[in-house]
């Protein structure tokens, strides 16, 4: 299909334009129509159309540029696809969820769509400033979404925490960017890499890097910048938590890839300007992130908080990419991001569905779930085992690729990051313990009630989609993995 005929010079922007129009007219749709379901349907249509357009562009191998700041290629296309899937799943269930139907739905969908636009904009950016703007668009929309449950004090607390921490992260980032601009006279990432190659590493450059790592570290909730995540995920409505945990966090990781991988390993910048030091910095952050996430998750009794900590740990696994800095690692990391969307997203959806049915968020509330809601229990078990990396589920396959990237490269075994692989693998084992606790509650312990649980059908559909992908990506990873390889090649220019 020839999309350039429709979008002309702005084809590279096509998926963004569609969603942007959506974000702008959704409040109007609600204002005029005053019907929740209609607004929901419009939002869903925009999400799907944008998803289809992007899927066409991606499979066609479209590459293009717009305004000199934004580039659509295999990498940004893949990331955009991921954000669109997240948006689709989140919007799909929002109308049925009792947590979100009382909100200003027009604004709610507009914010969610707007946040996604920000993420998509980030994915295609090649300039520090456009990345910054995209991240802010997402963050500010997210602050509002988290606090929309106005009656709930937990949401208010989460919102305040999120805003303050977000503000701090923004300040740090812009500080780092300004220093880099001062050093190199440009905010374009590739140009910065080239200039720095000539001037060499100095302490100011190092401070800039550290400030930016810290700033974006807040976004992905890397330890020690993770304290906000559990409170926010707990306080927000489940579809929003799911959106943040799977979408917003992936944006942060994508920013890491786009800035630091491009700066240190891509194309012309192969010679190491700060190579080793930065790699070790990321390796240590990765090790702490996964370890702290997993260990604290053991102590959680609230399932949303447990999932929040587990998603901190998952971000730690993906940070292995930043330590290893190879193309193989990047494609593995991208693939893990995709599988994580389905398994973590699915788990949050189940929590949301059960909240609609009046089941609490405590793990003890899940006792005897296997009898009360067999499908949800099976799905939850699959998601959790997949997160723990039990074959033949998607989480295992992606972890297989990801962890193996720390063991070696093209020349055989390299022992530099073996310790990181060991830590990752021990963490995987720890995580099985707390996931198994939920499985045990659902399948083995007896609950107070044996009454069947009815959840909205639309939730069942969304969860079924996740289940299918968790299984299919486990036994047939190439469905997505081929795209991940192309994307990694495109980003690193190899």
């Amino acid at each position, binding site marked *: 299909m020839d999309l350039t005929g429709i979008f002309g010079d702005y084809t590279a922007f096509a998926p963004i334009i569609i969603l942007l129009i959506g974000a702008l007219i959704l409040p109007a749709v609600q204002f005029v129509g005053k019907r929740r379901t209609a607004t929901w349907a419009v939002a869903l249509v925009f999400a799907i159309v944008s998803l289809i357009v992007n899927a066409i562009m991606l499979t066609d191998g479209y590459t293009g540029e717009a305004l000199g700041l934004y580039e659509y290629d295999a990498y940004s296309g893949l990331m955009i696809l991921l954000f669109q899937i997240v948006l689709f799943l989140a919007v799909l269930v929002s109308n049925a969820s009792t947590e979100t139907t009382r909100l200003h739905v027009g604004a709610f969908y507009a914010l969610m769509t707007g946040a996604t636009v920000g993420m998509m904009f980030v994915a295609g950016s090649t300039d520090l400033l456009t990345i910054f703007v995209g991240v802010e668009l997402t963050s500010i929309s997210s602050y509002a979404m988290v606090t929309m449950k106005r009656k709930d004090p937990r949401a208010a607390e989460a919102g305040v925490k999120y805003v303050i921490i977000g503000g701090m992260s923004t300040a740090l980032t812009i500080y780092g960017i300004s220093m880099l601009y001062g050093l190199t006279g440009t905010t374009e990432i590739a140009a910065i890499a080239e200039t720095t190659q000539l001037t060499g590493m100095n302490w100011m450059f190092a401070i800039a890097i550290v400030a930016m790592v810290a700033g974006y570290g807040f976004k992905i909730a890397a330890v020690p910048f993770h304290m906000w995540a559990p409170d926010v995920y707990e306080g927000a409505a489940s579809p929003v938590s799911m959106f943040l945990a799977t979408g917003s966090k992936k944006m942060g990781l994508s920013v890491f890839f786009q800035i630091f991988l491009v700066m240190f390993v891509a194309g012309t910048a192969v010679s190491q300007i700060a190579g080793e030091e930065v790699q070790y910095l990321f390796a240590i952050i990765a090790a702490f992130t996964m370890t702290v996430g997993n260990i604290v998750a053991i102590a959680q009794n609230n399932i949303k908080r447990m999932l929040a900590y587990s998603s901190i740990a998952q971000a730690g696994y993906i940070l292995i990419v930043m330590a290893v800095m190879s193309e193989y690692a990047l494609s593995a990391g991208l693939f893990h991001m995709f599988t994580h969307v389905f398994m973590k997203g699915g788990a949050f959806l189940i929590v949301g569905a059960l909240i609609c049915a009046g089941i609490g968020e405590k793990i003890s509330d899940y006792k005897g779930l296997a009898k009360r809601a067999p499908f949800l229990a099976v799905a939850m078990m699959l998601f959790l085992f997949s997160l723990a990396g*039990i074959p033949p589920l998607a989480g295992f396959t992606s972890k297989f690729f990801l962890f193996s990237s720390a063991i*070696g490269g093209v020349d055989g*075994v390299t022992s530099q990051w073996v310790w990181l692989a060991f830590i990752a*693998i021990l963490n995987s084992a720890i995580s099985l*313990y707390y996931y198994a606790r939920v499985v045990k509650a659902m399948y083995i312990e007896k609950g107070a009630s044996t009454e069947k649980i009815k959840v909205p059908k639309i939730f069942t559909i969304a969860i079924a989609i996740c289940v299918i992908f968790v299984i299919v990506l486990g036994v047939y990873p190439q469905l997505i993995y081929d795209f991940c390889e192309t994307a990694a090649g495109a980003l690193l220019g190899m």
Partner: protein
Amino acid sequence: MDIPILSLLILIPLIGAIATLFMGGERQKFAKYVAGVFAAITLILSLYVMFATEMGELSESYAWIQTSAITINFALAVDGLSILMVFLTALLTLLVIVFSAEEKDRPNYFHTLVMAMEVGLMGVYLAADYFLFYVMWEITLIPMYFMISWYGGPRRHYAAIKFLIYTHVASLVMLIGIFAMGFESMGMNGGVIDFSFENINALMPQTSEAFQAIVFVLLFFGFMVKMPSVPFHTWLPDAHVEAPTGGSVLLAGVMLKMGSYGIIRVCLECFPAGAEHWQWVIIAIGLISMVYGAYACIAQTDLKKMVAFSSISHMGMVMLGIGCLSDIGITFAVFQMFAHGLISAMLFMVCGFTGHALGTREMPLLGGLAGRMPIFATFMMISFMASLGLPGLVGFWGEFPLVYGFYEFIQANDMLWLILFCLLTLMLTAGYYIWAMQKTLFGPETTKIDLEHVHDISKPEFAALAVLAILVAVFGVWPDAALSFVEPYVDGLVATFGVI
């Protein structure tokens, strides 16, 4: 088109598992027949593979995952080492289904779990690709976890989670070893990691001794915990004591063998130099497991726990045989794996029966059961005698040639005094079995428990035990029936060591 027999060996139990899964409600009492039929077909197929085909020609390989850096195939193969385990898996699965015919608590799920276990076990023994091998290895964990925690004894939650975490950690360490092998082979054959056994097992012996020594340890650790060897054995007694009889039979009969199978298939085939480097460590672990297991048996009052420790002792013997790195040692280590599979299945059936017929397995509470339960007593005696190595039964061939192999090894190394450990073990083994028999079967009838309503074993239980007893006797007088499969394989393996 050829029929993909090896795939069928995995596929048929899988269909059986799915079929029984959906037999809820009224239909659940028929689950055992469905499972039985599928298990029987699998057994017939495995016998067909064993006797009627040229095993080397059965290998299958289908492209599965192909990326620019990794090639993974769904590859299956069978040879002299795996065929005995495949047969044992098929046999014990069927016998477990027969033996557990009277399971009343959600029988459909019980059979689903048994069939799912068979899928994983078959996969482990048939896999010819490291990715597939690892996938199947992990798949066995989940059904066993549920089997212990649904059908187990009072401390089942603790035992199940301990089993799950313990063995999962071990297999993850093994996974790192697999990665290392993959990447090393990538450097050697030009840019693509091909995870097939064929590729990796051919390349690994050429690697440097330091690499072999390190990766050997990673893999060995994974396998050793599964076997399990002292000091990583503590999950086993808990798992066994709490598991239902069927679970115990599969656990001891075939799941522990995954460990020793892995050591021979992966560690020895890939890293002959690594094995020689760690030879004394392997021997030490074998000896310690053997003696400690037997010694711990003496102190047990629970029959099943005693048998669990005896498993550790016997698997230690397998480890010792492997450690000799000689023709006779490895041959009889494999034979011991097979023999122990048959015997431990019997042992656990007998102990499990004691538990549910009398309500207790505590030896101090039992006594004089032979009078009331003569058939049960006969089977118990056969299994105990077989396990302590009575000539004429299969256990003898698992133990004595193995000790002889060890003797040869220590004679060559001037360490003859080590044989004392073997003698000690044999004495202890004879001691705890005969003692246990005397305390439970003979002497005055116990008054500590109510024997009013005690009945002898039922027909299905009799059938399962009788089949095992016959096999124990047949292989006892005709060990060549099994050895003829093992010997050609071991000859080929030992030839790569550069020692006899």
